[in-house]
């Protein structure tokens, strides 16, 4: 067998999983959009979709909302990422905790919280009335702003973590060097730091945009009919109208839109930035953008000079940057801060203030077989998903290490493809094949779906660890007489164990919070925790949700802390 063949063999499990449960289902499902009842090719569905007009309108509206969410996520996330990337190690872990806490806590949980925060009796309205800014509570919910706030809140941590990866690779000495050459700190930032961090910004923007485009929770819970997003229409087509061809066409519309934006992105920056690779010099923004940045920096420097602002110590953000970062973090953890008191509420409905406190809703959770059953199922599914992801992604990451050039780019693109596919599309396509395979309502069906969705994250995390791993240690082990297997067991794996643990945690948490797959594939009987929470939110909306959310948050925090402990000090 050739060496290339051997390396590709490591991708075997990944290709099998992605081929059977990602590429094939999506291909088969999307093809439905071009077939009539007898299976003959037709463009009728496309024509009908186009003629109706509303679908294209909803798509445009979805793109608009997603673009705003992307803009806000990057703007809010940037100062936090900057502070996080440049803080000294001890402060860094504190900052990281505040970013990771919301990151690991459930999408659903945080979206629910905004209903309380922005509600007529919520803290925001209470504050406005108390401050005399408004005579009576405003209708903040069910609006464009509420949807954008809710989605941004959920997606900022993704933006932060993507940008930190790139920022940490920027040599801190460069800003210092700019200082010795006569640049004020703010000029050094705009001329040196910002251009070098642009690959991270664009990667973050891409990730946020794609995720936002596939969202349905925030618009469904926080928006009105005007904020309907395309994924909500897909759900409607599948679950209410059972119109597969039309669902396929809508997904296709979504994908084509996303692909066009990808193509633009790839031309500008290249997809490899998603793995956190620092920008290749030439790709760090065009000349025009750079000149613009430079002018901005000069203007800011002039302003600082005129106002006689004291420059911060070299290499650190100023007090202003830190203040922005703290505000951003407050915005991120606000939903979590609100949920806790609400979960102890004694009332019938989710509301603020929570009123008399008690454990009523916790008691209900723990005495309900439905909730306990769903929790158990979610944990089992998450554990199995983690196992599948590691088995598939770790060999692939090792194989990827040894690939170069075009083969490497192709392998990377294949491995992260599910990341670039809205989860909703994956879930609908899987539902389409599961119906045929008899996997609807089975644990296996859920695990496979979750594994496909979590795989890119695990792959990227493991690849990132391997990239920092010194291959000469393996060579040393080999020269000392260790077989490849012994080398892996005694040298490589112990050294990358920390990375593997955090990769596993990714898989576990993503699975625990995954709603899309369960929405269709759980078949109503085999409900997971997020599915049950979703049903509760759309049907009843009691403080029970806050209680469950708090419990989920506790479990996730415990896991994160445990993982941090298990990780060997580096």
């Amino acid at each position: 067998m050739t060496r290339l063949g051997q390396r590709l063999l490591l991708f075997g499990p990944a290709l099998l999983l992605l081929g059977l449960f990602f590429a094939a289902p999506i291909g088969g499902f999307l093809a439905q959009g071009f077939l009539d009842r007898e299976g003959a090719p037709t463009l009728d569905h496309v024509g009908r979709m186009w003629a109706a007009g509303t679908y294209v309108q909803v798509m445009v509206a979805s793109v608009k909302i997603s673009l705003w969410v992307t803009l806000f996520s990057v703007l809010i996330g940037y100062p936090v990422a900057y502070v996080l990337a440049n803080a000294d190690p001890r402060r860094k872990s504190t900052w990281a905790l505040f970013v990771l806490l919301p990151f690991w806590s459930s999408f659903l949980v945080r979206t629910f919280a905004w209903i309380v925060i922005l509600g007529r009796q919520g803290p925001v309205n209470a504050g406005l009335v108390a401050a005399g800014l408004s005579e009576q509570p405003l209708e903040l919910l069910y609006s464009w702003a509420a949807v954008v706030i809710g989605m941004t809140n959920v997606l900022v941590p993704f933006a932060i973590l993507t940008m930190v990866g790139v920022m940490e690779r920027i040599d801190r000495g460069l800003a210092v060097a700019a200082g010795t050459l006569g640049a004020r700190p703010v000029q050094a930032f705009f001329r040196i730091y910002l251009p070098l961090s642009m690959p991270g910004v664009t990667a973050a923007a891409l990730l946020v945009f794609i995720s936002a485009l596939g969202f349905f929770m925030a618009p469904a819970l926080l928006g009105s009919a005007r904020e309907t997003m395309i994924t909500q229409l897909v759900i409607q087509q599948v679950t209410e109208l059972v119109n597969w061809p039309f669902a396929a066409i809508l997904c296709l519309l979504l994908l084509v839109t996303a692909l066009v934006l990808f193509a633009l992105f790839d031309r500008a920056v290249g997809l490899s930035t998603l793995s956190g690779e620092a920008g290749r010099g030439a790709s760090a923004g065009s000349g025009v953008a750079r000149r613009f940045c430079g002018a901005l920096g000069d203007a800011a420097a002039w302003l600082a000079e005129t106002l006689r602002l004291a420059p911060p110590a070299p290499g650190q953000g100023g007090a202003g940057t830190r203040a922005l970062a703290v505000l951003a973090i407050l915005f991120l953890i606000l939903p979590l801060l609100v949920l806790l008191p609400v979960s102890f509420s004694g009332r019938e409905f989710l509301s603020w203030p929570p009123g008399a406190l008690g454990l009523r809703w916790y008691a209900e959770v723990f005495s309900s077989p439905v909730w306990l059953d769903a929790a158990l199922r979610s944990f089992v599914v998450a554990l199995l998903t983690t196992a599948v992801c590691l088995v598939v992604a770790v060999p692939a990451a090792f194989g990827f290490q040894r690939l170069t050039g075009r083969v490497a780019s192709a392998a990377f693109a294949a491995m992260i493809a599910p990341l670039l596919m809205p989860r909703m599309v994956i879930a609908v396509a899987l539902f389409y094949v599961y119906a045929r395979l008899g996997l609807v309502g089975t644990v296996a069906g859920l695990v496979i779906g979750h594994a496909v969705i979590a795989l890119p994250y695990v792959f990227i995390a493991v690849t990132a660890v391997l990239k920092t791993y010194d291959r000469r240690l393996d060579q040393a082990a080999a020269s000392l007489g260790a077989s490849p297997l012994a080398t892996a067991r005694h040298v490589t794996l112990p050294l990358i164990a920390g990375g593997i643990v955090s990769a596993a945690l990714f898989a576990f948490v993503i699975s625990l919070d995954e709603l899309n797959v369960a929405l269709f594939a759980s078949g109503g009987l085999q409900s997971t925790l997020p599915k049950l929470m979703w049903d509760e939110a759309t049907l009843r909306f009691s403080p029970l949700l806050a209680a469950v959310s708090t419990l989920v948050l506790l479990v996730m925090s415990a896991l994160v802390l445990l993982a941090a402990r298990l990780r060997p000090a580096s």
Partner: protein
Amino acid sequence: MTRPKLDIRGVTKRYGEATALLPTSLQVAAGEFLTLLGPSGSGKTTLLMMIAGLTEASGGEILLDGQDITRTPAYRREIGVVFQNYALFPHLSVFENVAFPLRMRKRPDSEIAAAVGRTLELVRLGHLAARLPRELSGGQQQRVAFARAIVFDPQLVLMDEPLGALDKKLRDELKLEIRKLHAELRKTIVYVTHDQDEAMLLSDRVCLMNEARVEQIDAPVALYERPRTRFAASFVGESNLLDGIVQGGQVRVGERSLATAHRDRLPADGQPVTVLIRPERLRFAPGPDAALLQGRVVDVLDLGAVRRLSIVSSGTAGLAMTVLGGGKPVEAGGEVFLTAAPEDVVPLSESGS
């Protein structure tokens, strides 16, 4: 010295309990090439960073051209710095890297183009102006870093182990180039290194540092020939250190007395003293009577140009001797009688001032 270009007065740096630099005073004349030489942790980089304004001094003042710049931020100091890893901006071309300080000073484009072109020619990189830093070799990157540090005609140029990342051959080549550029430009340069060859070759004066303070400041040859302390003697060059007692203006080592031309450096009669004799300053004595030292050759390293002998001699920790190669081979095991001129016998003190 007329008014020094750089005047460091009692500058010190503490990190909590730890002292990175004890109060240090130092003057650098205009056009001078001063090297801060010392082992790692000796405080040389700390001092350099404080001159650059990248580390804040805990005490003392730094004057540049008579102006107190102790509290001036780095970007207003008019001091060019060549960093150890060059710190070239990876997203900017060679031209833009070198143009950067001029753009910060809002010079007109025509002037920038002319100055950058001139400076790149000076370091022989005019043809690579459009390249990105990563497309250059290590030596070329080093030259860009140097060009960037001098293009804005700074008052002072600081260099922090600028050749540290290069291989030996390139280092030797660039050393000569820096020397030539300094001779042409007559810039005031403060240069940090732990490599004594670099220090000897480049400097007008060497400031030897050890344990957070200045050990000795002297011209390279003076530092080599007349080190003041045991540390200076052993850090620069090879050394034979002999322990003895002062007796009547001479140094008694074992049975013999060594005359020294540096009697002013001897402590009082009866005090212990250590003297230095460089290996190449030891000579064979014509016979036992004229000998200051006596010993047996235990090892001979014939390097062609020179021959290095290891000699066991009572009352010493062993002697190293370097003689010119060629002629009659020296056999190990032979008895030898050695002597040294009084000016080559240098008394040392235990620690610096």
